[in-house]
């Protein structure tokens, strides 16, 4: 009797398990299909990430191309097209084993030849590659699925830069035949390994991607850009819609399932709409005030410090962004949770509103009362309203400010000059996976800062040390010194962190708010 009962129970359990698994499978199967329509603000010149620093390109082409390494949700570096890696000779050699089962969009299996060809091109023309190149020796194909990266000197941030989402720095693998065909010219035939294939590109209108049926997902658990990517959608259409209200209307009517950067003041309206979900991404952007360190009075660090004391950052937050759920005061270059976050960065100066001290510092710097030019963009709310609010606050302590608001191309051209401006407000991407990346705009004559002094050379030295230090604890201490030096010399500073508002339809499921929008693992209900 007992035996019969046990047998019946086992049979029942098997039937039940089968039922559940078939239901799960059916549900999984149901997720496949559909065309996702998205609305993005800006079109791009082309789709070749190596040939531009416009990160909108990688936001779309992340679906087509993949990196050897990718970052997960917590910014942990994870092998992606790489199966494993080994760092040898105290950081001079990196041996990388590739996954052997990765099919490319041309039907071939990805191998070391594709990686070597893509890497050489990346090293030559990509913004990230150009950071690596001065320290790099050579890339060697050990066999079909093993490669070796050799450096002339230790270059600690190498792997982080390979996966960096900043300014299209990420190294992605393209088919060797495409590299042979285009060389360093702009690529317009796209053969990658990603879950979606390039189908159609209509400049200024749309980019259409279709599911890559032979996609080989990473065996690791999916988390943001790392691990398993499942292409549930048949098709993804990136539409370029310059007018924010049209993007909003498109989501309201269901024409679009996702819209990038919509007006933050409509947050409550979207909240009340049952078909729409608000998407606030953090970390997203920093509001950076950059000084022209070559132009008096900001060729003196006391004048630069004075501006930090003269500004009420909280008031600026309300003026430039508005609703406090979209911004937060943050003195560190890396957000909380990032392994490089320095919690006490800027203590004693950041967020200390002290107009009297500001006046004293200006006097110490020998400021002669000349009008100070704030150069800023007029098309972006943060830049426009921030510049106006900064002008207002500085004028309150007797500084004569001339506001120059222009469209983007004019701002980009003017700020590249050594004279004609004193301060510039610019949005920076917050997610910087390695502190070395800041070297691109921090140090002697880096980017537009025109910073060339004893302090800038000291900063160069700090970055040089950081470059060679492979131990995390030791490197973190250098990052603390870098942050301290930054808040002492103040060639630029972050006023606050802020987030843009994106919206999506409720039928778009499993959407995760990454630092760049991505649609693998999402499906339409």
């Amino acid at each position, binding site marked *: 009797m007992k035996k019969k009962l046990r047998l019946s129970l086992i049979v029942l359990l098997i039937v039940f398990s089968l039922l559940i698994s078939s239901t799960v499978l059916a549900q999984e199967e149901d997720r496949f299909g559909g065309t996702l329509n998205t609305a993005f603000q800006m*079109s791009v*010149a*082309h789709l070749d990430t190596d*040939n*531009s*620093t*416009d*990160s909108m390109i990688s936001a779309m082409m992340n679906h087509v191309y993949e990196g050897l390494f990718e970052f997960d949700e917590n910014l942990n570096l994870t092998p992606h097209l790489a199966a494993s890696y080994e760092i040898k000779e105290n950081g001079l050699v990196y041996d990388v084993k590739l996954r052997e089962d990765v099919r490319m969009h041309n039907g071939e299996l990805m191998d070391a030849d594709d990686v070597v060809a893509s890497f050489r091109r990346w090293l030559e*023309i990509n*913004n990230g590659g*150009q950071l690596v190149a001065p320290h790099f020796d050579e890339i060697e194909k050990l066999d079909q699925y093993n490669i070796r990266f050799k450096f002339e000197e230790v270059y600690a941030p190498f792997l982080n830069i390979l996966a960096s989402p900043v*300014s*299209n720095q990420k190294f992605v693998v393209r088919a060797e035949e495409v590299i042979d065909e285009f060389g360093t010219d*702009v690529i*317009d035939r796209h053969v990658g390994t990603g879950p979606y294939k390039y189908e159609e590109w*209509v*400049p*200024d*209108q749309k980019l259409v991607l279709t599911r890559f049926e032979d996609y080989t997902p990473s065996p690791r658990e999916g988390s943001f850009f790392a691990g398993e990517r499942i292409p549930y959608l048949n098709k993804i259409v990136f*539409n*370029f*819609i*310059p*007018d924010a*209200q*049209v993007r909003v*209307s*498109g989501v*309201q*009517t269901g*024409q679009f399932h996702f819209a990038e950067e919509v007006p933050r003041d409509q947050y409550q309206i979207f909240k009340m709409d049952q078909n729409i979900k608000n998407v606030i991404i953090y970390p997203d952007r920093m509001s950076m005030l950059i000084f022209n360190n070559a132009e008096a009075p900001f060729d003196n660090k006391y004048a630069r410090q004075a501006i930090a004391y003269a500004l009420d950052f909280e008031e600026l937050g309300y003026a430039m962004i508005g609703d406090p759920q979209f911004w937060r005061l943050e003195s560190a270059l890396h957000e909380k949770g990032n392994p490089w976050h320095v919690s006490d960065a800027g203590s004693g100066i950041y967020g200390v509103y002290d107009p009297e001290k500001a006046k004293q510092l200006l006097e110490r710097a020998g400021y002669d009362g000349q009008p100070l030019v704030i150069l800023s963009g007029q098309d972006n709310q943060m830049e426009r309203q921030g510049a106006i609010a900064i002008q207002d606050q500085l004028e309150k302590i007797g500084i004569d400010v001339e506001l120059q608001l*222009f*469209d*983007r*191309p*004019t701002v*980009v*051209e*003017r700020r*590249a000059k050594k004279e004609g401006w004193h301060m510039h407000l*610019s949005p920076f991407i917050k997610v910087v996976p390695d502190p070395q990346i800041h070297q*691109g*705009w921090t140090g002697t004559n880096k*980017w537009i800062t025109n910073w060339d002094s004893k302090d800038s050379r000291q900063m160069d030295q700090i970055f040089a040390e950081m470059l060679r230090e492979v131990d995390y604890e030791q490197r973190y201490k250098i990052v603390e010194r870098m942050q301290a030096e930054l808040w002492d010399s103040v060639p630029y500073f972050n006023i606050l962190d802020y987030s843009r508002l994106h919206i999506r339809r409720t039928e778009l499921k499993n959407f995760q708010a990454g630092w760049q929008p991505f649609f693998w693992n999402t499906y339409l209900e």
Partner: protein
Amino acid sequence: MRNYIIKRILLLIPILFIVALIAFFITNLMPGDPVRVILGNMAAEAEIVRVKASLGLDQPLIVRFFKWLANIVRGNFGDSLYLNAPVSQVLAERIRPTFLIAVFAEVFGITAGLLLGILAAVKHRKFLDQFSITISLFGISIPSFWLALILMYIFSVRLGWFPVSGYEPFAEAGLGTFKYIVLPAVTLAFMQAGLIARMTRSAMLDTLKHDYIRTAKSKGLSTYSIVFKHALKNSMLPIITVIGHNFAVLLGGTWIVETIFVIPGTGFMAINAIMRRDIPVIQASIIFVALIYVVLNLLVDLSYAFLNPKIRYQ
């Protein structure tokens, strides 16, 4: 007449040369560096220099001007810095949706404008006259970008009759193309209708005072016959002028409307080109609009002779 036409066509050459001259120097002297836009915010200086050289933007302005002039005489406007294609090809592709919208807007505008104008003149100083004047005043005063968003909200968001944006060419979507162009065309037609209605009303009021209209009435002709066969026909000269001149204005209006509704026409192309300093495209757009203006002016002038036998150009 033939000599007059030839003379007028020959006059187009210096006009277009002056336009080309202005277009070239304005676009090259305006602030904003196209290469920095193409390469993005963080591009290295060496990379900027390399791309400038590859695009020929490092040559002296005067050298570039004569090269450019020699090319446009042969119909070659150069290559778009951004779209990676010859400008003439881009222009040819973008012209279709623009003309489709402009022609539909013109048809809507003329029909509505003439009807409102005639109604106002016939019912002078009555309710319908006031109604017509009010509507036409709205048409002239409402900015097209605002009207476009209002129409989008009512007909796309609330009623769901039309898509909020986008475009599919006739070859792909067939009649489905029209659902994309109705709202942009109606937006543009509104202003056109307002202008035509006002001009029709004033011209008709003037004509209806003439003796031959009184004679027609006393002969017992029907109102329809008096209004359409006698009064309207004799009022057409100023109306045609307004229609002709405003067709060019309407083409200019597509710049805003196409941008809002994301119609890939010449207007959207030109606005995008300005935003990113795609100099060859901006130059071609200016010359294209100028060409439309001068050709339409010529056609309007020539139509006078056709409509009014009293006008003799010889």
